[in-house]
Structures are given as C-alpha cells and as structure tokens.
C-alpha cells in the first residue's frame, strides 16, 4: 500500500531536480566583487599529502577526481564557492586532527552538514576546504525512558526521526529540509521549524554536545542530564554559532514521547484579523495539544499548487492556516479541535477548511506548507527574508513590500510560523536582478528594525545576511561577539566571511 506514496515521491523528485539544476550559478567571488579573500594559505600537495595520511581514500575528495559542485553550491543555487578539496572525517578525533593541522597551516575551513542552509553559510566563499560531516551519521544511543538520544552530527534528521519512532519517541524539531539536513547543522544554526511553538528551540532541547575547536581541542560538553548548573553553559555558544566557534560532532538531544494522536487541519480565511482571532482562540482552547500554527497567503498557495501540481482542499481565500495538534488521546484531542472549529465556523472567522482523515491527507496538507520554498525556487531567483515581527504586524510587511515593488517581481508573498511571530517574506524574479534587490533592501531591514524585530528569525546570517547583524544587535553586543570569536578562533579559520559584517579595523 505504499504504491500511492511511491508514485507521488517519484514525481516530486523529477520536478525539482530537472527545473532547478538547469540554472547556472555565478561564482560568489564574481557576484559579490567587494568580498576579499583572507590571508589564508593556498592548498598545496604537501597539505593534501597530510590529509591523505590521516584519512582513507574515500574520505578525501579532490576536484581533479570528483565533481565538487554539490559541496560548492547552496540549496538555493544562489552562491557558488571554488573549493578544491572536501574532507569527510568519520570520528571526532579525525575532525580534531584536521583542525589542529589547518590552524597551524592557516588553511580556511567551511564546515558543512546537509547544505540546506538558506543564507549561503554552508558553502565556501572562495577556496576554503569543505569539512563535511556526512560520514558521521550514526545514532549512538536512544534511551526510551529518559528520551535522550546521542547522535553523531552528520545524521540526517529524517533518519534520526525514523530511529526514534522505534522507541516511541519524537524529535523536538521538524522542518521542511529534514530529508537532507543533518542534526549537527541544525544545532550549529539553532534551527527552528514547524514545531518550535510546542517544543521550544534547540537551546533548550540540546542537553549536551561535543565540539572541536579551531586549534583541534575537543570540547566534551556531552552532558545528558536535564539539569546541570556547574559553571558556564559553554555549549550554548556553539548552538547557533553557524560553524564559526567550533565544529559540532555529537549531540545529546532531549526527545519527546511520540504523540499517538496527531490532527492536521487546513483552513481558509478572509482577513488577517480573522487569522489573528483563530490563532488567539487556538492557543487558548487547544492549550497544550497545539503543536503548529502556520500561515500561508494566497500567493504562496498559488505558487505551490501550480509549480508542483499539488491539490488544495479548498477554494481561493486571501489567507490559509494550517493547525496541528499532537497529544496522547485521540478522542480528547478531536473533541477539543472540533469544539474550537464549531465556534470559529459558526461566527464566520473560518470560512472553509478540512481536517485530515488519515496520514496520507495529513502529509498532503503539510506539503502545501513545507514545499512552498521549493516551489518558489522553480520560478527563478528568490529573495528570501526570514524575520521576526510583532504578531499584529505579521502580514503588514508583505503588503507594504508588495506596493513598493509593483510589477518588478514575479511574486511577492508571505507565509510562516504565525505562532512564533516568524514571517517568511519571499519575492521572486526570473533571474537575479540587482535593481529589484535594491528596492527590497535595505527597506525590509529598516522596516523590521523599526519594529524591533529580528532580521533573521531562524535562517541565520551566513554570508548573505551578515551585513544586517546591526539591524538587530547593538554595537556593544556585536563588539563582544567579535571578542568571543577571536578567543575561540584567533586565526579565523572556521567559516570565515560568515555572520559578521565586514569591518575596517580588527579588535
């Protein structure tokens, strides 16, 4: 009975691969001519010889014998580095040996997980050596009673989810990229996702980790206790550091009991006020079982249904919401949800909608939200903004931007984690258009800054957003961030050119 699944899975792979791989990607060093290569060593045969002496043949990929474009180009096909060497360690000790050597030899490193990042942070800018965690993909242990899973950083999130299900556990995070992203990368970028509303972010659910510093020292912070107040919690520095303070090699994750009852609903609404009212009442009436509250605007849904030939359960509405509940008692949860819907339908807040009756429908409804990113990429070049704004203003930015851009783009749309106040604003054009870009930026950042929002809610800064750190962090704070970076990585070999704005003087 996986026939239905297999058919649609095959069609999905073909669609995205074919249309997206056709696009040529310009070298980052060409598209961003103001970027200057740091004073790092150029790779030599002597360096290569060292790496080959500590790693097996299949762990060292050179551009002479291999196609490294998968490592040099990001998922969005918006940046391309020119790395000539990919190293794929299998143990923390190998990572340490690599970094120790590179630190002495002044070789720049780009740590890489699943390469699904959206801000150009996971690929080299110039010829940095890629250190890929992909071979460190084991689930080391899962404790059903405590819910603690110890995993190697290169384990693909979906694989971890499958393993956890066997012990009746669930991941504390979920995102559209889970088929490719790795838990180490999730931790390094403090990934958010569609369940943050329910389980909080990784600063809370990561109990411990192992990280390797730039000088090769191994930081064993692999605590598995829920409570540990014995000094500064240094692991927090690595979470969200985007590979600039150390390389995460192992993670101890607090997982949740797998909910036995999951309900997914998809609704159509006529106004943003109705959306806010639905969210308000959902949080109140669904309480602890609410696990996702997502918004999709008409333009986003139109994109995902036409580009990927997906089916919407209802007709056109200005706004759509996807609600998910997760609990331990199906009839209790269904009753709560049905009572809520009765209220909202009777008073006209929700005009139409559907509740998934089985897993197939639930999966299809989620696809309407999770594959928007993929659908947008099919249209050409995507200008992607991931911002935190006060919930009342959540959609205002989309409307203001739409008016400002007029006919320049193909599309200006918004969707996102309404429950978390995290909007994904996306604009598309056929090709990269600097005129359009200048109309969008810095307007979008000024707008968010004025609302004291975050210019990057969950995607991070990477390369593409590094200049905008100042819109959400004060100069004093940035100053001390640079001090921390200098302390942990004095030679700046870990993911250089990322997250920090360019500066004229060094601290």
């Amino acid at each position, binding site marked *: *009975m*996986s026939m239905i699944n297999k058919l649609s899975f095959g069609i999905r792979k073909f669609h995205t691969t074919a249309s997206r791989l056709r696009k040529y990607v310009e070298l980052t060093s060409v598209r961003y001519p103001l970027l200057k290569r740091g004073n790092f060593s150029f790779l030599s045969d002597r360096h290569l010889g060292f790496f080959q002496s500590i790693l097996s043949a299949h762990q060292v990929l050179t551009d002479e014998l291999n196609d490294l474009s998968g490592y040099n180009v990001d998922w969005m096909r918006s940046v391309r580095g020119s790395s000539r060497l990919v190293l794929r360690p299998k143990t923390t000790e190998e990572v340490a040996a690599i970094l120790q050597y590179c630190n002495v030899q002044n070789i720049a490193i780009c740590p890489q997980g699943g390469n699904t990042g959206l801000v150009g942070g996971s690929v080299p800018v110039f010829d940095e050596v890629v250190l890929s965690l992909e071979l460190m993909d084991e689930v080391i242990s899962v404790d059903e009673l405590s819910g603690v899973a110890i995993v190697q950083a290169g384990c693909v999130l979906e694989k971890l989810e499958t393993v956890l299900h066997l012990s009746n556990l669930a991941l504390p995070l979920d995102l559209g990229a889970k088929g490719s992203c790795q838990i180490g990368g999730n931790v390094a970028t403090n990934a958010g996702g569609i369940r943050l509303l329910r389980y909080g972010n990784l600063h809370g659910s990561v109990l411990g980790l192992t990280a390797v510093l730039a000088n090769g020292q191994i930081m064993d912070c692999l605590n598995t206790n829920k409570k540990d107040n014995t000094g500064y919690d240094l692991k927090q520095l690595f979470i969200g550091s985007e590979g600039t303070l150390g390389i995460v090699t192992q993670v101890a994750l607090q997982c949740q009991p797998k909910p036995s009852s999951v309900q997914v609903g998809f609704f159509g609404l006529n106004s943003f006020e109705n959306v806010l009212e639905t969210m308000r009442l959902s949080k109140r009436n669904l309480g602890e079982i609410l696990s996702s509250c997502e918004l999709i605007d008409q333009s986003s849904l139109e994109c995902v249904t036409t580009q990927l030939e997906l089916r919407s359960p209802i007709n056109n509405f200005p706004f759509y919401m996807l609600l998910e509940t997760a609990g331990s008692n199906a009839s209790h949860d269904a009753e709560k949800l049905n009572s809520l819907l009765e209220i909202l339908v009777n008073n006209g807040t929700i005009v139409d909608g559907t509740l998934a009756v089985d897993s197939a429908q639930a999966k299809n409804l989620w696809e309407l939200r999770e594959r928007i990113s993929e659908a947008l990429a099919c249209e050409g070049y995507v200008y992607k903004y991931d911002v935190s704004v006060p919930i009342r203003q959540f959609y205002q930015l989309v409307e203001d931007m739409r008016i400002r851009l007029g006919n320049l783009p193909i599309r200006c749309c918004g969707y996102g984690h309404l429950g978390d106040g995290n909007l994904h604003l996306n604009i598309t054009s056929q090709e990269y258009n600097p005129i359009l870009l200048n109309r969008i930026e810095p307007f979008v950042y000024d707008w968010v800054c004025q609302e004291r929002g975050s210019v990057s809610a969950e995607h991070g800064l990477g390369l593409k957003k590094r200049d905008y750190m100042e819109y959400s962090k004060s100069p004093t704070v940035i100053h001390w961030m640079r001090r921390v970076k200098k302390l942990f990585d004095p030679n700046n070999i870990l993911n250089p050119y990322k997250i920090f704005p360019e500066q004229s003087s060094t601290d």
Partner: protein
Amino acid sequence: MSLRILVGCKRVIDYAVKIRVKPDKSGVITEGVKHSMNPFDEIAIEEAVRMKEKKIAKEIVAFSCGPTQCQETLRTALAMGADRGIHVEVSGPEYETLQPLHISKMLAKLAKDEQIDLIIVGKQAIDDDCNQTAQMTAALLDWPQATSASKIEAKDGSLQVVREIDGGLETIKVKLPSVVSADLRLNEPRYATLPNIMKAKKKPIKKLAPKDLGVDVSPRIQVVTVEEPPVRQAGAKVENVDAVIEKLKALGHA
C-alpha cells in the same frame, strides 16, 4: 437513472503506522494505534458521491462492520457526501476472526433490505489484502461483478467498467444491479470540508447486530500465530567491481 448505492467502508490501521506484533504472537497491536478508512474504500465513496453529483445516483448508504470506533469511519463517509450510515457492531474476539465471507453475507442481506442498485467496495483492505468481498457478495446475490475498476460509466441501466488486469485494461459491460470494486486509479478522493463535516454530524447512522441480518459471526478460523517477517540482513559495501565478483563467488552465487 437514480440508483441507491451501498458502499462498504472498512476501518483499518492507518497505512503510515509501523505495524508491531503482540508479544504473545496472537495478532498485531491495535490498541492506541491510529486507524483510518481503508484507502480503496475512500475511493469507493468518492465514486458514489460523484455519481450522485452527476444525478446518476439518488442516495448513498455507507456501511461499516466492527467496533464502536467504526462510527468515526462512517462519519468520514458522511462528510464526503454519503447520506446515511449503517453500523453493524462486532467487537472483541469475534471481530478478530471476522472474514470477508461474513461481510459479504451482510452486504447481500442489506442489498435486499434496502433495495440497493449498486454495491461499491474497495478492491481489497490494506490489512488483510484479501480482495474477496466484492466477488463473494456478487455470488451470494447472483449479481454481475466488475472488479478492480479504474473507470465507471453509467449507460441505460447498465455500467461500462474499465478494469485493471494483468495484461492491461479490460472494458466490460455489466447490467444493474451489480457489485463493483474500486481500484487505485478510479479517482482521487476529495477532502471532506468543514461545512460538510458539520452537516455529517446530523446524518443518521443505524446500528445493527449481525443477527439482525441473519449472519453468524462465530469464528470459522483460528489464528495460530502471527510473526514479523524475518529481519533483513545487512548488505556489505565493496570498493569496486572486482570486489563484487569476488564476494559473489565467495558466497556461492557466481
């Protein structure tokens, strides 16, 4: 034409659930496990609803046999467009040994009592994969049958049905009343939308016992043991083609 259609809807473990065998090997774990309508039966309901929308059918009766929770399955059918439901309640050990023959007898009796013109069921259930109910029901009623249907057209008191068979597609004509079983490509079931979900709560579901239909559900089979399939052995990776050949030879396959 204004047909009265009877549709069978079986409540089964949801297709996405990982099935686990009970420790005592007497069956699979169903307690606390997500259930939903058999996907082929969803397709059957959808086809009936489309026939009603085309004014070929005038009434759709949804049928389900099993424990109390079957009412949820019937509510889904009602939300998709069925007019009323019939729930034949069977639970406990009798439910565990329920067989397609029992269901066929119930469907046959209901077909006569409710003056049914067309019975549509899914071609098989995803738990037992029997693919027997439609055929046996037709035999009991001495009605023609069109199984594994991927297209149905109603014309002057009969149905033209395209069937999916091993060799390709077969088109047959069956006179009404008849029994049809739905295959995967017959249609794509609709989502039940909120206004219809609300309306469905008010549609009637008649509850019956098997004896009301003259059907004896005492077990005719005994489940001896249920076991998981053997664990798949891990494969081995090798570096190149020569190594593959060596390995195959060593294992005695070449």
